[in-house]
């Protein structure tokens, strides 16, 4: 068994483990193994690559790996609300890595063994570099917008001819790439390659700038699949099948998640990428003002005590307020009274897929009371109280009929079908789509203005008070 065989064998095993890692994610029961399988696979991959004879300067490698741990561990401790930013940030790291490896390989071969730059390889190389660096800057922008960093504009930034400009840039990059493929070391290529890198970096920024903060999750997923594809391209360049497999798994995951999100928002890729969503509306929306019916905490508590089925509809607001633990206490209070409590989870509630599930799981709410939209909607008519916690667009009935709204056609949770609606939010401001919410003016709806955490905290106090009063 030669070294090559050993390495290849290790790669086969590693690839298999990666597949299982994702396969086991199909239920929380087995998901525990996923991380184990995945990290073992990665360990094998690293080991098998490292032992190869052509690897000489172990010092640098060890240092880089240690540095990776130093930065990686804290990055894994971020609060769950910061997960989207974190994901974006590490996509940018991933893009940087593939991009740099691409550069290194190009200059290596262009400098020495030019024969290696076959048309096929060079094409793959160009793809790798463009996708890599585009993901790098693009994800950085996305992370910035999500982190709400001052000097990165939250709202979509648009200017005339924007989309055309971006497409022109990509076309330019592609053209330069073609040049390289035709003649990898011709007079032009000395400038062509760095030019490609520059254009890719620029594209990343320009493509993400016109996209609104709340569309970032979709963008992140798309960038995720780009990162995967550039790993695939690297695999083609290095003739390494493990890279291709892992990259492809990653690419398909990003693709599917972004499709799911677009579906759930009833929007197309193009609309997300070029729609500059959430710009125009926002500007107009806040002007409007109609009157809400309000309810006191005491009143709300009483109503809930009378209920037999309470459906809690969490939204981005619960995440912002970090209210999940209070929600848990509320859940305990109500269930202790024999009231059935269910959670209605909209596929795009919050700011990333599965956002609400993680938060509620964090606060120890058993995941079998977290129902998906399609499972809970039939029950809504029998629901006595629908408690909306910092959700807005995902319960806006306008999505059903009002063609003028940006969320028209997006499936929603039928909170308005419940016998009574209690809605917790801080202000009269609209949600991310920037439109007023019909639901809140409905005659069955009563508002509880205030920070979700505070309001629910009061509700819990009230209820525990009453119960001790019993």
């Amino acid at each position: 068994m030669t070294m090559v065989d050993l390495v290849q064998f290790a790669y086969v095993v590693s690839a298999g483990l990666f597949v299982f890692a994702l396969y086991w994610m199909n239920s929380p029961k087995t998901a525990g193994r996923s991380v184990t399988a995945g990290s073992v696979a990665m360990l094998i991959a690293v080991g098998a690559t490292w032992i190869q004879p052509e690897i000489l300067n172990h010092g640098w490698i060890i240092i880089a790996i240690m540095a990776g741990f130093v930065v990686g561990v804290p990055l894994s401790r971020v609060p769950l609300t910061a997960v989207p930013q974190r994901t974006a940030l590490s996509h940018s790291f991933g893009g940087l890595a593939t991009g740099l490896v691409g550069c290194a390989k190009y200059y290596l071969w262009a400098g020495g063994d030019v024969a290696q730059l076959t048309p096929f390889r060079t094409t793959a190389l160009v793809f790798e570099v463009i996708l890599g660096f585009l993901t790098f800057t693009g994800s950085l922008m996305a992370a910035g917008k999500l982190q709400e960093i001052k000097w990165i504009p939250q709202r979509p930034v648009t200017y005339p001819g924007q989309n055309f400009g971006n497409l022109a840039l990509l076309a330019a990059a592609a053209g330069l790439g073609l040049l390289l493929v035709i003649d990898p070391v011709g007079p032009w290529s000395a400038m062509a390659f760095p030019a490609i890198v520059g254009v890719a970096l620029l594209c990343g920024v320009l493509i993400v700038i016109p996209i609104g903060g709340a569309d970032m999750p979709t963008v992140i997923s798309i960038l995720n699949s780009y990162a995967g594809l550039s790993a695939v391209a690297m695999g083609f360049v290095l003739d390494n099948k493990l890279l291709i497999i892992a990259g492809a798994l990653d690419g398909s995951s990003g693709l599917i998640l972004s499709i799911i999100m677009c579906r759930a928002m009833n929007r197309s890729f193009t609309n997300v990428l070029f729609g500059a969503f959430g710009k125009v509306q926002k500007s107009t929306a806040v002007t409007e003002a109609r009157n809400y019916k309000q309810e006191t905490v005491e009143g709300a508590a009483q109503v809930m005590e009378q209920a037999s089925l309470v459906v809690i509809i969490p939204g981005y607001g619960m995440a912002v307020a970090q209210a999940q633990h209070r929600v848990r206490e509320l859940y305990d209070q109500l269930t202790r009274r024999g009231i059935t409590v269910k959670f209605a989870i909209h596929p795009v509630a919050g700011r990333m897929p599965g956002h609400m599930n993680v938060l509620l799981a964090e606060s120890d709410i058993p995941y079998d009371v977290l129902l998906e939209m399609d499972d809970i909607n039939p029950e809504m008519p029998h629901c006595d109280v629908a408690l909306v916690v910092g959700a807005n667009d995902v319960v806006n009935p306008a999505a059903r009929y009002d063609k003028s709204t940006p969320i028209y056609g997006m499936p929603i949770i039928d909170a308005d079908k419940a016998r009574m609606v209690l809605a917790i939010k801080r202000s009269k401001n609209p949600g991310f789509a920037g439109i007023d919410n019909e639901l809140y003016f409905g005659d069955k709806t009563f508002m509880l203005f205030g920070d979700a955490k505070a309001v629910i905290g009061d509700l819990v106090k009230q209820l525990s008070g009453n119960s001790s009063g019993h």
Partner: protein
Amino acid sequence: MEHTTDIWSLIFVFALSTFIGLGVILRVSRLLHTPLMSITNAISAIAVVGSIIVAGGDFPPAIRTMGVIALFASMTNIVSGFLITHRMLKMFKKEEKKK
């Protein structure tokens, strides 16, 4: 010819693993979409393989520096990706036991 078939085996591998990817991901539970994002994040750091080759090879320092930076970046993703996924999944596992 030898190289052509080799290219094609890469293409075969790509096609097949895309099939697997789509099949597997479509069956991931909705509950776990956030952990899924973070674990694929760690897996995409497979670029580490390429980084090691570039960083460790007997090349001019400039090249190797790129490799080292790439290696650092991928390593960060591997570490943080798997750790945070583990952290999230533990929450779901806890539920599991409680019920």
